[in-house]
């Protein structure tokens, strides 16, 4: 019983307290509108989304819908189920706005990603092109070096050709000169023999028994001198010959003197004495019969044997 009394006292006190506080609550409701916790939450969510710098301006239409929905939810309703419904709608619209803004942000990032990838590809291609270029440059340099080498070889070959041509020209001119000398020799009535070219100076040079040159023979000797001056590689052997009148010793001495006389003329006109040999052959080498005056005249002679050029002799 005692216990029962106690509990009834407590219960009645509690009842009074509850009624009192309800009264206070009702009074506060009347004072200003009570915020439904759902309403407070959606407003907070909206504010958070609106102040997110990454998302705030990315889905303007959905954002406005969400803001409108939140405002509607905040309207005072007689029926709390209407508020619950409006809070639900506001919640979903905020979520839609957030998702749309994130999609927009993602798509914007995609552009940057695509550009990055393109840049990577571009860089790779540029590097490939550069290395190809370097390889090409190396090849080009090698080619250039080869071309230089080749042109060096070519110019060497050209030089060799030029040298050959010069030698050919020299040889040609030597040949021409030889031909000219040959012609001069022919003009001197020289004859080709085994011993070389033989020029026979007739007895017109000398009077009988004498060895001094007659004035009339000078022109023939002058031509010989000119020829020898132009052909310094040739030597001459001068042979004196007589007819068979008079003794052998006399004719031998006479033929020697006549040969010496011709040699002296040549050396006297600038021909090196080393190139000139004078020999007396007496009457031992006749070219005609000594029994007739014409034959003896033919035998009285001086022969000038001109050596073939050193080159030709070899």
């Amino acid at each position: 019983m005692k216990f029962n009394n106690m509990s009834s006292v407590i219960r009645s006190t509690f009842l009074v307290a509850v009624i009192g506080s309800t009264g206070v609550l009702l009074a506060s409701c009347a004072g200003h509108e009570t915020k439904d916790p759902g309403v407070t939450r959606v407003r907070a969510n909206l504010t958070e989304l609106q102040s997110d710098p990454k998302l705030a301006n990315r889905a303007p239409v959905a954002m406005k819908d969400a803001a409108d929905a939140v405002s509607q939810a905040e309207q005072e309703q007689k029926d709390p189920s209407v508020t619950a419904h409006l809070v639900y709608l506001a919640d979903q619209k905020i979520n839609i706005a957030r998702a749309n803004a994130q999609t927009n942000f993602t798509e914007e990032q995609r552009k940057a990603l695509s550009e990055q990838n393109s840049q990577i590809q571009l860089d790779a291609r540029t590097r490939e092109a550069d290395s190809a270029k370097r390889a090409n440059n190396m090849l080009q340099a090698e080619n250039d070096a080869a071309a230089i080498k080749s042109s060096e070889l070519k110019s060497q070959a050209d030089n060799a050709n030029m040298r050959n041509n010069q030698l050919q020209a020299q040889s040609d001119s030597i040949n021409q000169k030889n031909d000219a000398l040959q012609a001069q020799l022919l003009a001197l009535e020289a004859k080709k023999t085994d011993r070389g070219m033989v020029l026979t100076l007739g007895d017109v040079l000398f009077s009988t028994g004498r060895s001094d040159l007659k004035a009339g023979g000078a022109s023939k000797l002058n031509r010989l001198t000119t020829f020898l001056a132009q052909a310094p590689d040739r030597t001459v052997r001068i042979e004196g010959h007589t007819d068979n009148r008079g003794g052998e010793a006399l004719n031998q001495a006479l033929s020697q003197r006549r040969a010496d006389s011709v040699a002296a003329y040549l050396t006297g006109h600038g021909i090196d004495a080393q190139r000139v040999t004078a020999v007396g052959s007496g009457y031992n080498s006749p070219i005609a019969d000594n029994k007739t005056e014409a034959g003896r005249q033919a035998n009285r002679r001086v022969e000038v044997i001109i050596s073939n050029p050193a080159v030709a002799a070899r």
Partner: protein
Amino acid sequence: MKLHLVPLRVLLMGGVLALAACASTPQPPLDTLQAADISVASAEKESGAEFAPLEMRTAREKLAAAHAAALKKDDKDMTESRRLADEARADADLATSKARLGKANAVNQELQKNGKALRQETQRNTGG
């Protein structure tokens, strides 16, 4: 006189019946239901079930309930139908938005993967 009273009585009775019919059959929220139908259909087209299965399910359930409520006769049912349709539409729209975001993220991840692969490849090429 008798002839005059009969049509008047008929008219009165008809008027009462018409008023009674009006009061007992409120208009179902056809526009709202149609809008919700369209939103749910387009969310399904956007693969909402794959990217936002929860939103998709509640959208379908609420849409079905909205249609069911619209078939009833009570004014209160029509209000319920409208609310359910509005919520179904919001759920479906959210499913659509989430599906688009999911797809966009997938594309970006693919791009990032490609970029990483490209970078590795080019580093290998230039390194080697």
